[in-house]
């Protein structure tokens, strides 16, 4: 009765550029008045972009940096800051285009070069959101997505911190975003947008005779097919559980196994050199993650508020859960545990943040805190890999958990917002009927695909880089510390 605002629902991910030009056949049909960006939305997306950068630098850099020994502090900071610089350039050169344009025959897997070097994008270009008739400036959409491309490879470097060669990191990151990140992001997040679907669906409804109906239906099918493969499967990933966290987490695991354990691992005390920095980092990750998750709504409405609330409470629940479990098992509740739980909660709620309800998110957080605790302690010790900063245990494990939970918690009867249906009632943002099994199965498929694709391709890339320039510094340099050996400076002087 008191319905003040249409909430935005969506199938997958984080938006689509108005892609009409790619489908000229439909252009004349789009006779609807061209939408103008709402300045509230534009502001929200500008800020969300800024928040995701904040989350990476200094957020992630400090979270990671605090955990290494002081002799390697600068190496971690440099790797992350340099990754941001490098990837943002690659993104505007060809990454955005490969991710968010139609790739022709390869469109299931990857886009094309139509927008390479941001060709044709002006301050007036619009990008679609998940609501019909709502657009934002394409430049801010491009920038928002750029920050995702920057943070994902930066997450990986934590897995082999304290021993990797700096030049190897740069080369690996450039290759990895090109061959792994851009394709996966395209497969999961590229689509034609709600207005294109609505226009085509309305044409179907309006078609008078069977022949016209058929033509219109073909056009609608073409619009629906103008999307990445995982999007077409119907997998749900609100803000990047698959694209960002599982993707980076599995690459990290593969990397740390290939590069080998740190000298002295298991024998020397490798205590975090500054848990203060780690705490600052965790807090800024939390703060910035609101841009990541609620910004992924692309619009400043009630659903953005929901995503913000979910990102708050799931995180709180996971932090608390890790703290309590550790207290029970190890005897003491540590700040590192609490902070790790916070990050685990943020990761787990990422794919669910715009789909689940707050109570569902809390349950997800509670589970994530406990599961990631065991992944980073028992599991890691049992298997025996040296994932320096637990990229796998937190991001991959938390990401998988969140991806699967999203399929469950989207259920309206569990407080979720339901699956969007852009076609049945074009332009009205209706909700589909929910069924548990198919919803969960498609999530599992998406997880499995990402694990295999990213795992295998990353392994190949690591091997190639190792052969060509070497992944690891000499042992003596590792002992001296990467700061002096690789960068010629020390983090702290008197």
């Amino acid at each position, binding site marked *: 009765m008191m319905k003040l605002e249409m909430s935005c629902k969506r199938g997958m991910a984080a938006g689509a550029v108005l892609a009409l030009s790619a489908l000229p056949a439909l252009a004349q049909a789009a006779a609807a008045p061209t939408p103008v960006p709402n300045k509230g939305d534009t502001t929200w997306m500008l800020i969300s972009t800024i928040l995701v950068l904040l989350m990476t630098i200094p957020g992630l850099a400090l979270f990671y940096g605090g955990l290494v020994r002081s002799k390697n502090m600068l190496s971690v900071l440099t790797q992350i800051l340099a990754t941001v610089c490098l990837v943002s350039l690659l993104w505007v050169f060809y990454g955005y285009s490969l991710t968010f344009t139609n790739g022709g025959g390869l469109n299931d897997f990857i886009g094309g070069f139509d927008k390479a070097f941001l060709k044709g994008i002006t301050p007036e270009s619009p990008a679609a959101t998940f609501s019909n008739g709502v657009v934002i400036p394409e430049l801010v959409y491009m920038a928002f997505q750029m920050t995702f491309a920057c943070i994902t490879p930066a997450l990986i470097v934590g897995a082999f911190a304290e021993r990797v060669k700096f030049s190897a990191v740069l080369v690996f990151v450039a290759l990895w975003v090109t061959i792994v990140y851009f394709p996966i992001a395209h497969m999961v997040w590229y689509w034609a947008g709600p207005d294109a679907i609505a226009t085509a669906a309305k044409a179907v409804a309006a078609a008078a005779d069977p022949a016209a109906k058929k033509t219109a239906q073909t056009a609608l099918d073409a619009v629906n097919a103008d999307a990445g493969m995982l999007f077409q499967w119907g997998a749900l990933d609100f803000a990047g559980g698959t694209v960002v966290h599982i993707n980076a987490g599995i690459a990290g695991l593969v990397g740390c196994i290939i590069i080998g354990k740190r000298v002295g691992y298991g024998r020397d005390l*490798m*205590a975090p050199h500054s848990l203060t920095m780690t705490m600052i980092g965790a807090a800024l990750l939390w703060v910035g993650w609101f841009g990541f998750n609620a910004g992924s709504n692309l619009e400043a409405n009630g659903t953005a508020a929901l995503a913000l609330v979910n990102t708050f409470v799931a995180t709180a629940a996971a932090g608390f859960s890790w703290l309590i479990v550790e207290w029970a098992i190890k005897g003491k509740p540590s700040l*590192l545990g609490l902070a790790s739980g916070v990050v685990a909660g943020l990761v787990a709620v990422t794919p669910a943040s715009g789909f689940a309800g707050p109570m569902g998110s809390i349950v997800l957080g509670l589970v994530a805190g406990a599961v990631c605790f065991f992944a980073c302690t028992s599991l890691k010790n049992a298997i025996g890999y040296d994932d320096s900063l*637990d990229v796998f245990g937190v991001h991959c494990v938390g990401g998988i958990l969140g991806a699967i939970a999203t399929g469950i918690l989207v259920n309206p009867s569990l407080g979720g917002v339901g699956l969007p249906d852009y076609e049945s009632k074009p332009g009205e943002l209706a909700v589909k009927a929910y069924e548990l099994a198919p919803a969960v199965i498609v999530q599992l498929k998406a997880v499995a695909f990402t694990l295999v694709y990213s795992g295998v391709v990353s392994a190949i890339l690591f091997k190639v880089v190792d052969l060509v320039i070497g992944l690891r510094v000499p042992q003596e340099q590792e002992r001296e510390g990467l700061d002096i050996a690789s960068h010629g400076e020390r983090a702290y002087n008197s």
Partner: protein
Amino acid sequence: MKLITAIIKPFKLEEVRDALTSLGVHGMTVTEVKGYGRQKGHTEIYRGAEYAVSFLPKIKLEVAIESGLVDKVIDAITQSARTGQIGDGKIFVQPVERALRIRTGERDGEAL
């Protein structure tokens, strides 16, 4: 002259200094060190790793004095630094052949 080296618990420093001052010993040098001994350290937990921390923070106090003061100084330190609990530390006495005050060039007894 002798050099008295005392390894003590960090929070006892002020008391020991006061005790020495009241003996007329007005100079000393202090270093933050880590000690290993019978006192058991705590365990630290970091994600998968648990470390038994065996080196504990201690203060090393060095005082150069005239030989005649040795007993008094040892007593003063012992009394002010003792808690009666394991890890209270040690005192060592070593010979000093010469001493010199850099500012004035004064030597030995006058340098202290």
